[in-house]
């Protein structure tokens, strides 16, 4: 599904966000990436669909090398990658339905977008996706009238419009309370298991990782420091990964 080789991202000013990461993701995996803030999780995800341009390295989505694509082809490939964000990133003043429909923009022309004319089946699919995430009755409300959890579900519905092969989730539940977090994670789990969509998800909380992931990767300072099953990480291992740094400083 996804292959990353030697990915490196250095921001202007010298900050090395991602430092030589290579990994392979198989179809149908639910990969969770954990790490402290600033460890490169978000940058890694954004490099995959080139919202952030990698400084070095190559990324393949199936047989397509994403890092070599021209803008028009990149847009085509982006259609196959759905993404949801920590801040939901809905258009607040637009209705929920408009937000979901926007997920299908990649498949219509500029002129059609100007007139706001999506194909009729898009409207059906949008509504069906809203039903799937459990909030069809909110379709005509303004997006900012919804609660956080509901907004994230709308974001999931928007991503589902693309019928993606891969779903990127950048800390989707960091702004939500524990119960709502589980609710959103369950939807991600459902689309992973039922639709076979590969999910790569950044998370803060180990408990969520252990509950939902089929594979866990830990990042530290832009490098992979752990790659294995969720059951292989316990609190001790987690602390030993991040506690080591403190010990090293003391030794010096």
């Amino acid at each position, binding site marked *: 599904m996804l292959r990353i080789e030697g990915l490196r991202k250095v921001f202007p000013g010298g900050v090395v966000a991602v430092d030589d990461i290579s990994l392979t993701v198989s179809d149908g995996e639910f990969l969770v990436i954990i790490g402290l803030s600033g460890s490169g999780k978000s940058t890694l995800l954004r490099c995959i*669909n080139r*919202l952030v341009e990698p400084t070095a390295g190559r990324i393949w989505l199936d047989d397509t090398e994403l890092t070599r694509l021209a803008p028009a082809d990149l*847009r*085509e*490939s*982006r*259609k196959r*990658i*759905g*993404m949801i*964000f920590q*801040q*939901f*990133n*809905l*258009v*607040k*003043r*637009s209705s929920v339905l*408009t937000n979901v429909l*926007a*997920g*299908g*923009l*990649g*498949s219509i022309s*500029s002129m059609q*977008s*100007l007139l706001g004319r999506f194909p009729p089946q898009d409207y059906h699919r949008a509504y069906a996706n809203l039903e799937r995430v459990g909030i069809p009755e909110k379709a005509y409300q303004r997006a900012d009238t919804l609660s956080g959890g509901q907004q994230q579900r709308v*974001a999931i519905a*928007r*991503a589902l*419009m*693309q019928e993606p092969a891969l779903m*990127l989730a950048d800390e989707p539940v960091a702004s939500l309370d524990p119960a709502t977090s589980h609710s959103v994670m369950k939807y991600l789990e459902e689309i992973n298991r039922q639709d076979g969509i590969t999910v790569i998800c950044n998370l803060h909380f180990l408990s969520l990782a252990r509950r939902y992931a089929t594979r866990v990767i830990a990042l530290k300072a832009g490098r992979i420091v752990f790659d294995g099953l969720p059951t292989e990480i316990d609190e001790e291992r987690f602390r030993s990964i991040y506690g080591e740094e403190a010990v090293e400083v003391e030794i010096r």
Partner: protein
Amino acid sequence: MTTAGRTGLPKTDPIAFRKAGPGAFISSWKNLFWVLVAVVALTYGWRVTQVDFVNLVVNLPRAERIVSGLLRPDILAQATEQTTVTTPLPIGAAAGAEPSSAAVGSGRLVVTPGAVTPAAPLTVAVNGVEPDSEVTFWLVDPSNNARPIRRNERTDTQGNASVTFTLPDSLAPGAYGVRADLSVALGRWQLTDTFVLSAQKMVETIFLALMGTFFAMLVSIPLSFLGARNLMLGSRVGWLVYSFVRTIFNVLRSIETLILAVIMAVVVGLGPFAGVMAIVIHSIGAMGKLYSEAIESIDPGPIEAITATGANRVQVILFAVVPQVVPQFLSFTMYRWDINVRLSTVIGLVGGGGIGFLLIQYINLLQWNQAGAALWMIGAIVILMDYASATIRARLV
């Protein structure tokens, strides 16, 4: 209770207290220096601008005419009916005894005697016309030129008014006449011509502002996207376009609308179109800058999200940028329209049409009552527009 600056400092330290307590401002040399600079600047400014408050107070009475014009604006007046009648008056060698007369109003114009020699005494009168009306007497010479005898004489309660005077001896003999213009009050009030004219001009003024703002909006909305940093700074070309557009906005903004009106009047002639063009040009700069800043202040999150779905630039702008900026765009447009209405009231002073044109004429002709009418009209409309635009803006946000 505020003890700003005193946190953590021992109360017994006098120097720290002076630095942080009351009087701290005065006791700092740096602050005193800046106060001195300010005083010097104000003094110099006083001299350069020739401030003279004594002059102002002493000469305040000079404003009396203008103030009285404002207090008694030429808006309402008694409806009057005008009638005119002329009765012949031969001026020559022979003097006749019979008075010359003609019917006017509900009475008669009587000239006694009915024929005279030059330098002779003459009485012109109206008898039995409507009481308390105005009559103006003229002497009409054989070439039909009218010389005033007495203007706006009021008739008494019997409807009589008369004037006795001596004809000048320089009059050539001929078939003269005496004309009386009678102005009878009809007992009801009506809006004056000044009011009607001002109202028409005010409509022109409002549309001046509307058209100007509209055309400026048409041009500056697309341009503003090109002047928004967050949309343009992706490529070298983008940066060049952005700089160019921003420079245009700044240049157009810096030329005041009234100056532009003078220039435009030279190009397209005096009249409202010059005013419209002046407003358009200046507003493109002003609105373009406001719009660009609105675009730059949007939340970048939705832009990221829509881009991630595979949408192209146009679609990202349509679905992620436009919904966020529409309320601000509308708000800024109403704000600019507000300003332009005010500007358009004075743009006529420099030849741009609208009510300013009328106002400057009244002032130049010292017609203070009419100027007062125009000023009241301006004030009323501007207040109305203020209220309207505030309501609309409240609805939008």
